[in-house]
């Protein structure tokens, strides 16, 4: 024996004992991850009696699998299921595209241009908005008239107020402000958002949910893409600009292709968040725009108990497309995320 059990054979490799321990841990963790999903899958094939009468683990061995729950969703309720599926796909996909597009633009400009907005002007704007909300909410002023006054007041006096006193913000502050939007619990903003969509007759439409999800996930996109763009070398862009390309062209022709990995990973994350969102969907949709998470929650039939079997089916059909997407994007996931942060 030239090597001990705990010594590596080669530089960069592991000792056999370390390997055994490592594999045991990874397999144990895989079990911990997989078991709940296994239970979910077999529950979807159980009859109500098989669920209620006690734990049964293996189909055909200790219970007879049944397709009744699948039939409930795909035969009797096919129209509802497909509508929710279609809504979820349309909403999650559009929201993701919108969010990644708008967020990347913002992140790119933040990483390349120095902004210096005046804090005092911003505070002035916020004060105007508070005044408007009080006027509308407590004194019942007309919504559109008040908003028009706010905008007019702002543009009339913004410069004057700005000259009065000036505290310049930096890009980092803007970035943090955008990120901090993620701190908001949805419950804080959901009621006003409901009323806002109500006033423009957009409740229960795809557009309302798409816009909401795009904004909710914007901070994540800006955050990740900002780091990513910072890590991309700027020589190429500079030479493109010397050749007379505009910023949009540079962004489209040079930066975007270089950012594929970052974009893929961010897209996946945002997609997962929008696909799974529940609270906003509950508020904004009533019937036409209902999404899959509502379908899952709907399987809790109140005093009739939880329909574990159909709920399992609903959860499973929700996971499948995301897993497929993740497998497709898998090679980007680990590479893409936060590459920038390491080097920055």
């Amino acid at each position, binding site marked *: 024996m030239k090597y001990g059990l705990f010594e590596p054979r080669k530089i960069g490799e592991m000792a056999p004992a370390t390997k055994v321990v490592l594999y045991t841990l990874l397999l144990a963790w895989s079990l911990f991850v997989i078991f709940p999903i296994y239970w979910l899958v077999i529950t979807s094939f159980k009859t109500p009696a098989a*669920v209620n009468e006690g734990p049964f683990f293996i189909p055909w061995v200790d219970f007879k699998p049944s397709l009744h729950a699948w039939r409930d969703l795909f035969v009797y309720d096919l129209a509802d299921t497909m509508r929710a599926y279609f809504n979820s796909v349309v909403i999650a996909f559009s929201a993701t595209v919108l969010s990644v597009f708008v967020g990347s633009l913002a992140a790119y400009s933040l990483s390349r241009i120095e902004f210096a907005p005046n804090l005092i002007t911003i505070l002035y704007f916020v004060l105007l908005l508070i005044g408007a909300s009080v006027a509308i909410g407590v004194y019942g002023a007309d919504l559109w008239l008040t908003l028009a006054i706010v905008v007019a007041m702002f543009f009339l006096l913004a410069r004057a107020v700005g000259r009065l006193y000036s505290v310049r913000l930096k890009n980092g502050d803007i970035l943090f402000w955008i990120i901090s939007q993620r701190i908001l619990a949805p419950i804080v903003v959901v009621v006003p958002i409901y009323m806002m969509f109500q006033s423009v007759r957009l409740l229960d439409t795809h557009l309302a949910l798409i816009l909401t999800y795009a904004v909710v996930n914007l901070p994540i996109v800006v955050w990740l893409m900002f780091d990513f763009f910072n890590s991309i070398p700027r020589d190429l862009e500079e030479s493109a600009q010397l050749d007379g390309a505009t910023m949009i062209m540079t962004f489209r022709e040079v930066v975007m292709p270089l950012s594929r990995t970052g974009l893929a990973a961010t897209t996946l994350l945002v997609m997962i968040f929008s696909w799974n969102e529940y609270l906003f969907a*509950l508020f904004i949709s009533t*019937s036409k725009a209902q999404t899959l998470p509502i379908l899952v929650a709907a399987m809790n039939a109140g*005093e*009739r108990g939880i329909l574990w079997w159909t709920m399992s089916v609903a959860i499973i059909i929700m996971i499948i497309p995301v897993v497929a997407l993740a497998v497709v994007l898998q090679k980007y996931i680990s590479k893409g995320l936060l590459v920038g942060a390491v080097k920055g």
Partner: protein
Amino acid sequence: MSKLLKGTLLALSASLAPALASAEEYDGVVVNILTRPGPVIAQRIVERGEEFKEMTGAEIRVAEVPFAELFQKILTDWATGTKSIDVGVFASGWGVELVSGGLVENLDGYIEKDDKLNPDDIALYFREFNQKVEGSTYFITLDGDFQMLYYRTDVLAEAGLEPPRTWEEYLEVAAAIHGKDMNGDGEADYGSCIFKKRNAQSYFAVQSMAASRVQSKGTAEGLYFDTDTMKPKINNAAWKRAFEIYQETGKYGPADELNQDIGDTRGLVISGRCGLAIDWGDIGPLSIEEGSAIKDKIGAVMMPGSAEVLDTETGELVACNAEICPHAIDGVNFAPFAAFGGWTAAVSKASDDNVKAAAYDFLSYMNQAEQSNVDVTMGWTGYNPYRNSQLDSTDAWVKAGFSQESAENYLSAIKDSLNNPNMASDFRIPGAQQYTGVVLDREVARFLAGEVTVDQALANIEEGWEEITEDFGREEQASMYKLSLGITN
């Protein structure tokens, strides 16, 4: 003879005429109905809706949102004038808040013109209390809800016990049968199964236990407040005893009863693991479904009562006598609690006139004896009986799969409860959700979890209720409370 024939023909054509006329009338009309999801409640509306479309041309669209979100959804939709919902199907108790906001269509005019509804057949409590606010009908009952006591006939017979008549007896019986094997799987089963999960139905259970101690002078006495001052009648010996009984039933139940809602306990009852249980009417039809371990082994009686009731002057319990408990049966005061009040439908005032007319006709169609008497015998519909004609004959029930004996037993328990003049009404004033679903429910949960003593819990509820009453306005609440109990002066 020919005169009779002619008369019959005339009557026939008269009854057909509106149906034919409406077939043209409602062509292209869409009625949007919002209710809770799943086969329960909603599924039957969909099926009856298809029949209705064939008859009248009106399209019935049913949308569903999770149960806990249902009321806010309807209220916000109607209050903001979004108009995406024409009919809401929900607990009648919630509806008073909608009516007081002027959001619900008064149905008196429609009922007057309706010759098929036969409202006199609807059981007294539902007709006079549940469907009405300020003497006018605003709601159509689809499902009659009150809790009953269920017991395993085989288990009790074997132990030589009678079904309990009071809550004290309930505890004795539960103790005596707890730990026996009741479904033959060799495992010890439970003496009593009563859901105790927070934010679920536990506040209904505790009210069922309190009702017979608090209310003895008939439905109009009410469970919750002094009708004049709106002072809560909660911090007293009757409610205290109810809390204690509720906690004590936990000794004879499953270990994780604190996290079980009605679905969990119902599953246990159906699989034969509970000796005693309280539940709505659903257990009856469910017991004969496929997979049930308790077919023809389950009996039902009216919710247990009490031999002593609250003296509102002193806040103490006093023994029943003919004067104090005019409705007592053999010295025991019963007050079956109309928990939840049942699923009822209301029509939005803001909808277009022809939509409202179609909506009413559809609800009337669902409620008419011809349809509803079939629907209530099927467990999966979630509809429980509310018409006298549904209880008069056991035929439909036997046809559905009951044995003659268990059908009689089940129907007589329902009849006893429904016809009891001391039936206790659920909260039916604005803020009902806050009073019970939030404050009462939370304090019950804290008491069961051992976070507070019963005295603290009751004091907290009193404080919380007073706060809500102040927020909504004491005067308005007091008058609404009186109206909800049918007191008109």
